[in-house]
């Protein structure tokens, strides 16, 4: 393609990305370096149906001038990044000095909100991604092998978990795994433990969330791999069959190398998606047992508190996290890319 054509071709996308992705991210970065001004507090008398009382309130007149002068707030540099709600440098240092080995150190810092969220997020990402890759490939191979007449129907049903909105899907499952729900009750009978509850224990909640994550993500890898399987080199497979390779050997030596670029693609997408895990935590009411960076952002923005700077900082940390996570895959793709083509 000529450079000129390419430029006009890419311009609309580029503009959209600049206005709707780059600019907002810049504003989030700026926000994360600022906090609201210090509030000037005064004591006033408030009256409500239950009587009058002297209470503390914000002096808006006095704070207004400061706000007009510097509408962005107070510049605090990296303070928010290092406070207890985020990287918690001070607390981490303290825990490091107080702990004898790495394990006790990890258990101490897992009490801090950011690290607690990171531990769950990473566990979720690194269990869901490989499992869904493997199962997705298995289903794709299976569907590819069955009778053509059945294929449409099976594909439709295999895609269902992805069609259901994540939040709705997790709420439905939340009620099914209730101790009085169909799955919860079944588990109680199977394990002969009437007090078994998936929602009451942290480890079982993690397992539930991971199972849900896999269930929801399989259709994506399945459909991508299935599309890849339609382009298999028939002559290579035929010659392998003549050489006496069994199905397993064919899969390992021909099919997987053939769809390797797709596997990389799905891995990239899923690492990003799973790192942002959010809806299942809300749907399963799992905040007590598992939190993620996205959940922290949501929690900071909601309710009465509206901690914009804290949410902005968590957003930037999420972006940094995703970049670190994707770096190995990106470097690999870069190296394999043939520039001469």
């Amino acid at each position: 393609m000529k450079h000129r054509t390419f430029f006009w071709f890419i311009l609309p996308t580029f503009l959209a990305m600049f206005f709707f992705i780059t600019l907002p991210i810049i504003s989030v970065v700026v926000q994360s370096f600022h906090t609201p001004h210090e509030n000037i507090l005064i004591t006033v008398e408030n009256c409500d149906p239950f009587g009058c009382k002297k209470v503390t309130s914000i002096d808006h007149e006095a704070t207004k001038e400061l706000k007009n002068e510097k509408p962005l707030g107070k510049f605090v540099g990296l303070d928010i990044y290092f406070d207890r709600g985020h990287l918690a440098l001070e607390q981490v240092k303290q825990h490091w000095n107080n702990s004898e080995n790495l394990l006790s150190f990890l258990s101490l810092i897992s009490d801090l909100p950011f690290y607690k969220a990171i531990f769950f997020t990473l566990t979720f990402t690194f269990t869901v991604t490989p499992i869904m890759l493997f199962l997705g490939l298995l289903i794709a191979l299976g569907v590819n092998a069955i009778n053509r007449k059945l294929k449409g129907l099976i594909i439709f049903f295999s895609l269902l978990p992805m069609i259901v909105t994540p939040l709705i899907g997790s709420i439905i499952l939340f009620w099914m795994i209730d101790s009085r729900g169909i799955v919860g009750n079944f588990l109680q009978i199977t394990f002969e433990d009437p007090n078994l509850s998936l929602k009451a224990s942290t480890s079982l909640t993690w397992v539930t969330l991971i199972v849900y994550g896999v269930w929801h993500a399989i259709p994506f890898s399945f459909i991508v791999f299935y599309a890849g399987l339609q382009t298999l080199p028939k002559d290579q497979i035929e010659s392998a069959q003549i050489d006496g390779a069994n199905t397993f050997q064919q899969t390992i030596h021909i099919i997987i190398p053939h769809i390797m670029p797709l596997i990389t693609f799905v891995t990239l997408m899923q690492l990003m998606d799973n790192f942002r895990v959010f809806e299942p935590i809300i749907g399963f009411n799992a905040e007590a047992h598992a939190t993620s960076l996205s959940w922290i952002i949501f929690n900071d923005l909601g309710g009465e508190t509206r901690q914009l700077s804290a949410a902005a900082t968590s957003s930037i940390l999420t972006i940094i996290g995703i970049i670190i996570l994707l770096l190995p895959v990106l470097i690999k793709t870069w190296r394999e890319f043939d520039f001469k083509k």
Partner: protein
Amino acid sequence: MKLLLIKVFSILFFLAYSSAFACSISARVSIVGNEFPAIQTVGAGAKECKGAKVTANLTADHQKINVAGMSSKPAEYTSAIVANTSIVALLNNDLIRPLDDLVNKHGKGLKKNQLITIDGKIMAVAFMANAQHLVYRKDILKKLNIDVPKTYEEMLAAAKKIRASGLVKNPVGGAYKAGWNLAQEFNNMFIGYGGSHFKGNSAEPNVNSDAGVKALKMMKSLSEYMNPDFLTHDSNATNAEFRAGNVAIMNMWGSRAATLVDADGVSMEVKNGMDIAGPMTVGGGKTPASTLFWDGWTVAKKISDEEAEATFIAMTNAIRPSILDNEDIRKQAVWLIEGYKPTDAARGVFAAAKMNTTPYPMLPYAGLMHSAIGKEIADFMQGKETADKTLSDIEDAYRASAKEKGFL
């Protein structure tokens, strides 16, 4: 059939009656607020006004949208329905206007104690009061010869007896969902033990105290008689458990008590067995382990004076005394409106007021404390850490966010 006819006629009568006194407005009105029966009544009342468009966005997520929706110029919402917890965010951001002029002009029917004044200026008009109090199954307590609990210690003893009798496996209910609900239960218990959240009039936290430890321990003991999934149960789920007959005693919102057993499929046993009483005290204290709330409406600052006037007229119309002629509306809440006579469902909240229950503090930093408690307390409830550690975690989490918001 007869009942249905009466209902239809009373609604028709109500409609005819209200349209006779229809209000007219000349500018747009847009309301945002929480979603429960009494607030839906207020929203519908505002919509009766003719002459301009009235819209109402009533949702449980109202706190996530009201600040943003009132910050633009002109504001999307001309009125926010709030409680003494949620008005703070609007005050902190200076988003609502003083109503003194409008009250003089259009607010003749309002009672003095409905007017919420802050530093002498009327900032909101309250229409109902709310508090958490005891809801219980009188049939079960009677069968086991248990007196209605007046303290949390008695509640624990009752729970022990009920479980031992085998009637209900997990007899205690409570909105203990991690987050806002759990923190609210802690606030109740903490106040009941005589604790105060802040040092004097400052924003310095004060929860890491004897009262805090006792409050946590009491909550832990109660949770042992709850459904093991209690950390996922908000007030809706807790009420569902009560309706299903799985809960015999619980601390529940007054605003939910009237319609608690009205749902389809509730057994006669639960329907006839449900009763309410005032809030409980704890640890020999006199102040109930509960907090008083009011719900009211505000008018946005960043709108034209015409819109503010229209909003005031429509909202005043929604809470005019004549709405109480409808029996269904009368029992939806403990109304603060002129001429309200308490229904049976209001006994709990009235008892709470009479016992001098502490109102939820209208402090600029109370929300930050509430959210810090909600985030940190779940670890203790699961037995992962000690009460002292949890309380110092709460103070640390609060300090970090209060520093960020410029209060410390």
